[in-house]
């Protein structure tokens, strides 16, 4: 019989020590070691080839700069991430065709990198680096690194220029009126778009790199003279705390920085509309934009803002009031309609007007399922149809949505499996849920609808009342970066009610929303003496010399 032998496991401390020694680049230099570029070009290139050179998209272009004493140079970049034209015209051509054999400045080889940057390179954005970590990150981000013989510093040239989607109308937030501009997947293009709209020197675009392996660029965008510095600091703190290997979409950041990670309500607003981000920044909010995604995050927000559309502000106020009223009614329907129907039908049919009750009872005659199961089946069928229509390509998706819904509903009614009133209830609920401008809050309502249906079945209207109170208790406990989720309704803020269910004309919105406590609260230059002058007198009719309305 073979004798069983056990190999003694190595102590963890010993393994860690070995790993640390392996990772330590020592004389070779490495990203964790600080200023470790060697002055020997061959050593630097060898190290770089070891780190990233195994990939065939990394290009090492060697050439000579014709100075009085010719200098060997290597340009390193990633093919596909750089603009070929910029590389060829502004770096390679400039350096190789330089007629500087009699250049006095080149006689002294000290600080050669700085001198090349000042005298030869004609590219816009150049920086000098002497640490490996930023050099490698820059190369992998689409910049080019210029290594020079005898120089322990490297020139980083911004040559980014990859293929990307153009600026289109955002498909998830289409509007009848308003700019047809959405974000794209390129962070710099997105921040440039915001900058193009807000030409204020106080606009800050702070960059952070998140993701140990993806090194994703993330930008905080806010107006320094308007946004609450506590909120900005809090956002920055939460972003800096993120320690993951990759950020593929802003949703990754959202889950890390939102206040209530277990809540079904989103506490950040997600948008791909530039105008929406600009409006939020002007109100004193903070926007977080990430590379590789068109979806920006806005904070702080309130629950009601999830039901505001960017378009609300482009229509005249009477229409906006009507739209918002309809939207809030639809919110109520999408959340409560099936459960109230179940509660009334099961526990309190006496509440339904007599003629209607008779009609409903007539249509339900012969249906094999109880009301609750009938509603549940239909709601599930709608959810399945919705999911199927999203997964299928454009025209097919629409077809399956319409045809599937029509055929399924009609056939089920004809077969006597469900009652016609049920198709009306379920269809109205589904249509109502589409009116929510924010996808996140629409999903929350869809999730809540099912437990409410069970509660309606078990506890009737009483159960629904208690469930609503429980929901309110939960929602009042939510804060988005310090802002109560249900404000301005609770706690009541009279000033912010100007932009709530009812809206006032734009000229009457003298102050920014106060819930996020902006530093500069006024967004309108004209002054009003008191609240009714602010509310009912357009600026042109206000008395001159009035004091600031507070």
């Amino acid at each position, binding site marked *: 019989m073979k004798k069983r032998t056990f190999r003694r496991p190595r102590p963890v401390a010993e393994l860690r020590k070995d790993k640390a020694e392996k990772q330590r680049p020592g004389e070779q230099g490495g990203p964790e070691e600080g200023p470790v570029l060697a002055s020997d070009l061959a050593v630097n290139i060898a190290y770089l080839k070891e780190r990233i050179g195994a990939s065939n998209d990394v290009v090492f272009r060697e050439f000579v700069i014709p100075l009085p004493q010719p200098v060997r140079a290597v340009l390193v970049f990633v093919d596909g991430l750089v603009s070929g034209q910029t590389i060829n015209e502004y770096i390679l051509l400039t350096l190789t065709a330089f007629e500087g054999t009699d250049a006095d400045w080149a006689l002294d080889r000290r600080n050669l990198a700085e001198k090349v940057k000042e005298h030869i390179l004609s590219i816009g954005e150049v920086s000098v680096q002497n640490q490996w970590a930023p050099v490698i990150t820059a190369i992998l981000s689409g910049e080019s690194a210029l290594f020079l013989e005898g120089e322990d510093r490297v020139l980083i040239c911004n040559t980014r220029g990859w293929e990307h989607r153009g600026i289109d109308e955002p498909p998830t937030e289409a509007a009848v009126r308003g700019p047809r501009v959405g974000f794209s997947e390129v962070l710099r293009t997105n921040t440039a778009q915001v900058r193009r709209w807000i030409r204020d020197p106080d606009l800050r675009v702070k960059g952070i790199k998140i993701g140990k392996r993806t090194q994703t660029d993330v930008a905080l965008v806010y107006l320094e003279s308007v946004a609450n510095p506590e*909120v900005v600091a809090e956002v920055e703190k939460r972003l800096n705390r993120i320690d993951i290997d990759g950020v593929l979409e802003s949703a990754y950041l959202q889950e890390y920085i939102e206040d209530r990670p277990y809540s079904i309500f989103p506490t950040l607003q997600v948008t791909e509309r530039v105008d929406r981000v600009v409006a939020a920044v002007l109100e004193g909010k903070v926007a977080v934009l990430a590379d590789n995604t068109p979806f920006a995050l806005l904070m702080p927000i309130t629950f009601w803002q999830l039901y505001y559309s960017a378009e609300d502000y482009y229509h005249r106020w009477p229409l906006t009031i009507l739209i918002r009223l309809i939207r809030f009614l639809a919110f109520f329907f999408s959340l409560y309609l099936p459960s109230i129907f179940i509660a009334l039908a099961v526990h309190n049919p006496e509440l*339904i007007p007599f003629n209607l009750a008779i009609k409903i009872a007539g249509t339900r005659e012969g249906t094999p399922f109880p009301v609750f199961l009938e509603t549940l089946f239909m709601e599930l069928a709608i959810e399945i149809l919705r999911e199927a229509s999203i997964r299928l390509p454009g025209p097919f998706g629409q077809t399956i949505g319409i045809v599937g819904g029509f055929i399924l509903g009609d056939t089920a009614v004809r077969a006597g499996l469900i009652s016609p009133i049920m198709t009306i209830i379920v269809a109205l609920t589904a249509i109502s849920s589409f009116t929510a401008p924010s996808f996140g809050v629409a999903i929350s309502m869809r999730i809540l609808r099912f437990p409410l249906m069970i509660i309606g079945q078990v506890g009737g209207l009483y159960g629904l*009342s208690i469930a609503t*109170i429980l929901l309110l208790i939960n929602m*009042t406990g939510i804060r988005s970066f310090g802002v109560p989720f*249900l404000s301005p309704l*609770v*706690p*009541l803020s009279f000033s912010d009610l100007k932009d709530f269910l009812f809206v006032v004309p734009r000229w009457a919105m003298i102050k920014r929303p106060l819930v996020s406590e902006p530093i500069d609260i006024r967004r309108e230059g004209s002054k009003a003496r008191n609240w009714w002058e602010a509310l009912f007198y357009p600026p042109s009719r206000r008395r001159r010399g009035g004091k600031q309305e507070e």
Partner: protein
Amino acid sequence: MIGKQRMLSSRQITLLILGLGIGGSVLTLPSLAADVFGPSGWLLVFVLGLFYTGGGWFAARLAAKFPEETIIEYSPRLLGKWLGFLFNVVFILYLFLVIPVNVRILQEVVNISLLPRAPAWFVSGSYLLVLIYGATRPVDQLAQVNELLIEIALVIGLSVSLGSLQHFKPLHLMPLFSWDQIKLDKIETLVGVTFSFGSIPVVSMVVPYIRRPQEVTKATVKATLIITGVYTFLTLSVLGVFGYKETIDLSWVGLELAKSVNVQAVILQRLDLVLIVTWISALFTTGLIASFLVASGLAQLLRVRKGSALLWGLVPVIYYLSTLLKNYFVWSQTSFYIALLSLVITFFFYPLLYLLSLWKGKRHV
């Protein structure tokens, strides 16, 4: 902005007092008032309300003298160790007894109208659990819940009262001040009427959370005046619609008032059930605030950090008390003793404590 300590506005204090004060009494107060004062019952409610406004003024002035403390903390300093302790026990006992009454009213109303076949444990139990869960939340969250619920209940309750005026007959209120119809011998019922106004203790417990403690007096007086106005209007409507004799005989007179409202083309057939559904929120705020005050009062009295654990521990006791008596009408007789506690606290202890604080030279904020 992130993490403020003093977070309640004076408006929220007003609404907290309203939230504790306006609740189950709406359904029974007009009957009790008519029983004692006949057709002038609304005047009784109005005068009692004014008295309580005076009591509220004392309570608020006292609270403003100790903006950093609750009454549980400073009463032993003013009354002495043992008498102060005794007062604190009476104070917390009063608030505690409000909770089972509240639970019982809800169970009765739900059982007679919305869910006739539902077992008592299901109705009371589910309500009590949500109530205690809400009461263990932070005070600002509690104030926000109350703010929303009490406003909805007030708007709908007053709309129903206004709607009932279509049947209002001024003759029903006549004669005004007829000594024949005023029965002052019904002292128990008279004291029971005062149960509706016993919401002043809120101010003594929440003053450390108020953003501007100097506004507490205004907020309290405003709240007690609103309660007086609401109850007077309700009693006036009920008496005007039904007449005082019928009012005395009706058990849940608030619901009967809602039933009397006829609105053409309403989606739902019976308005009284709509009133009950919204009135659950008013009942809830009463129980919620009372539970919160009991939890924080007990925590301070027993010097424990978490009053919420104590409150969860009291759930079986509250449930037992709520089911102890046969029916709500026996309970309403018992509410005489609770109302008596409220009277003693408001008209004896508050003025006494205020005078003692003046004597000891404590200044207002």
